[in-house]
């Protein structure tokens, strides 16, 4: 199932690509795509909604604190 999230605080598309890679590697997430300019993250996963956001945030912890991910 595809779910969209908002991602704010990323510096550039380069960093977006790195975060995208990291989230894509999370167990239970099949694919992740970040659109830097529209600030949207699209994730394909079968994880329940609550767990999914938590898992994504866990992965994003390695990034500067100003990077925030929220449900749309």
């Amino acid at each position, binding site marked *: 199932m595809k779910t969209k999230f908002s991602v704010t605080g990323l*510096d*550039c*598309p*380069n960093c977006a*690509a*790195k975060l995208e890679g*990291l989230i894509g590697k999370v167990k239970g997430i099949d694919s992740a*795509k970040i*659109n*830097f*300019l*529209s*600030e*949207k993250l699209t994730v394909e996963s079968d994880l329940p909604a609550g767990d999914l956001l938590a898992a994504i945030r866990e992965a994003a912890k*390695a*990034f*500067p604190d100003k990077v925030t991910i929220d449900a749309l």
Partner: protein
Amino acid sequence: MKKRLSPYLTHEVWQVLFGGLLLLAGVLAERFGAPGPAVLAVFLVALAVAGYTVWLDAIKGILRRDLLDEKFLMTVASVGAFVIGSYAEGVAVMLFFLAGEYFEHQAVARSRKSIRALMDVRPDRAIRLSDGIEEEIDADDLSLGDTVVIRPGDRVPVDCAVLDGRALIDAASLTGESVPVEVGPGSALSSGTVCRNGRLIARVERVADESAASRVLSLVEDANEAKSRQENFITRFSRVYTPAVVLAALLMGIGVPLILLWTGHAPGWTDWLHRALTFLVVSCPCALVISVPLSFFGGIGGAASEGILFKGGNRMNALAHVKTVCCDKTGTLTEGKFEVRAITPAEGVERETLLSLAASAERNSTHPIAAAIRELAPAAPSPASVEERAGRGIVADVNGRRVLVGSKKLLAEEGVSMPDGAQGSVFVASNGQYLGSLTVGDAVREESRDTVARLRRHGVRRIGMLTGDTEENAKPVSDALSLDFVRASLLPDGKYKAVEDLIAERNGSVLYVGDGINDAPVIALADVGVAMGGVGSDAAIEAADLVIMSDKLDRLPKAIRIARRTVSIARQNIVFALAVKLAILILSATGINTSMWLAVFADVGVAVIAILNAMRALRVKRL
């Protein structure tokens, strides 16, 4: 979250300001001979003020084992400069980097904001009418079949059909079409359009999420996922660029001096390290990586505000190279409405007699040609009786006269003799005597001629028409517009075949414009498929590369202009930024100029220029 005084006064500004003052103090102290440790202390504080946020991010980068993180590389460059004694340069690198970042953020935020404003066509409130009571609710809460009230100045909340009232509707924000349209009972309204005057009562036909405005928004948002050639190039390039530059820096800063030492020369550590650090300064491709997608983001957003929806940056590339344009005739080049273009009475027959009799005979017919004839003689009397001859025409009794209106064949069957070479679409006879003919045709749209001329100016080599209509009807349109080719009497699969043939000629890319209702496969087949007339049909949107919200062809040359300019802005940015980076790399590798000042200044400068240039793509009004 801290509250900000102004969105522009972020803490980066304070860092740059204080860091800059401290840097100045340090430079002055050095110049006026302050003791060494004091000077170092001032510079160190300056570095810390400017760099502490970058350091924190760099630590995070190290923790996730990303040694090519730009923050980490900048930290190495500035600290490295301190190690070789170039304090001022170290601070400057950090300051400029920060200033560049600040500028990038502002520019990106600004672009995002203007695009959101452009795309702000989604109404959130609606007035529902139930049992005579009006209540204001969320547009999302409307269901199919609900009745809504639309007042003057309101945005139409969802796609709906007018039940009662008349008004002028302004669809500019959705279609780019500035002339308002008059609507009345039975008219369809698209969400996002604005009611200029008048009060309408309407029935909900689609819920908010499936209505025009939402579909346009999601189309534009998803558009950024289909990347242009330039964006793909930049992505691939940046993947190689940073590692290559960092590797070169390592070789130069450590490798070369070691080799010199090994071979018995003076190693010259400071000089080589200096060159290597200059490399690190330009190792971040971020400006480039931002400016290219930013151009397309702007171009796609700007186009959307003109009622032109690109399905992705790659479609801009394709559109920029179109050489052949094929149009469907009905409704794109012509009004899709028949009108009498010529009246040719037989010798000795009055024009009015001919028209009036023909109009009487056609009085009750539903054929579009009949409507065109009636329009010219609205006062013509009703016929006493009418007999339709399928495919041939009508035989009517008008005031006791036996009137024939139809093809040559009909008149011949009835034994009417006609002059040789009589021309027209409809022939008229009364009591066995030939009265003359009428030529009825689809009117060429006013703007079609101009559109064709503009397409040619934009480098389109061939413009043609693929139509299901007959050769007889197609030819005058094609002549009026001086088109390069016409294929008439085509069934839908005939259009498919025709486009297939054009593509097979390999004479540049082929564009097909259709209404998308029954020609979705042709739209999908063409190199560039354009669906006109909005986001109504799913099949058309799925198949099309480009959706034009209005049903006017004049958007097409504009779309080409926007695509061309966007692609060229992206190219300018790539060439310009790469050239500057390459120049810095060459200058510092050869030792001609190893100043980190110059490197960081040029690198940030080119970033700023590239981003400003990219923001130009958003402005499409005057194209």
